[in-house]
């Protein structure tokens, strides 16, 4: 996280979990970044990453990461075909550093 803060990157995590669930999860895991709840798939539909019936019949998010600059322009993104393959924090940091050159 410190590497993100040092580069002035705000991290925002989004899922369909309701606020109460994420609040509990944050408390248990000690996360320090912002979590948003998209129970109605508002943002998920805008980013076209709905995984229809992805978990026990419920619509959930495909895992994806979007890095945007202060103007709101997407500068890097990652979509995966397999939710066991996720980018590491280092992958994002490297992408950021490469963009900034």
């Amino acid at each position, binding site marked *: 996280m410190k590497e993100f803060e040092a580069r002035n990157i705000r991290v925002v995590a989004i899922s369909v979990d309701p606020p109460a669930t994420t609040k509990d999860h944050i408390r248990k895991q000690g996360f320090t970044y912002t979590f948003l709840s998209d129970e109605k798939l508002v943002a998920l539909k805008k980013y076209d990453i709905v995984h229809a019936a992805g978990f026990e019949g419920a619509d959930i998010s495909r895992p994806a990461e979007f890095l945007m600059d202060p103007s709101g*322009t997407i500068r890097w993104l990652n979509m995966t075909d397999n939710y066991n393959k996720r980018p590491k924090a280092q992958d994002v940091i490297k992408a950021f550093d490469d963009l900034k050159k």
Partner: protein
Amino acid sequence: MHRSRILLSAALLIGTTMCIFVPPSTAQVKGQLPPGPKNAPQIGQKAPDFTLPDSNGTPVKLSSFSSIPTGGKPPWVLLIFYRGYW
């Protein structure tokens, strides 16, 4: 001659059975998702704005993150969408 015919038939039968029951290699990889989205925003496009509640239930607008300078400069924002259902 008789015996070899039986053996041949048996081999053919077993071979055919294996072709039916061996599962296809591409289908059941653990964690596999359906094919990728077609309308997702691309690099160079503006990230769609939205307002969602945070873990306290307070509505937060995505574009507001960019306008809160941390350390004097507006930050970049990394949006992480994850599956949820912890």
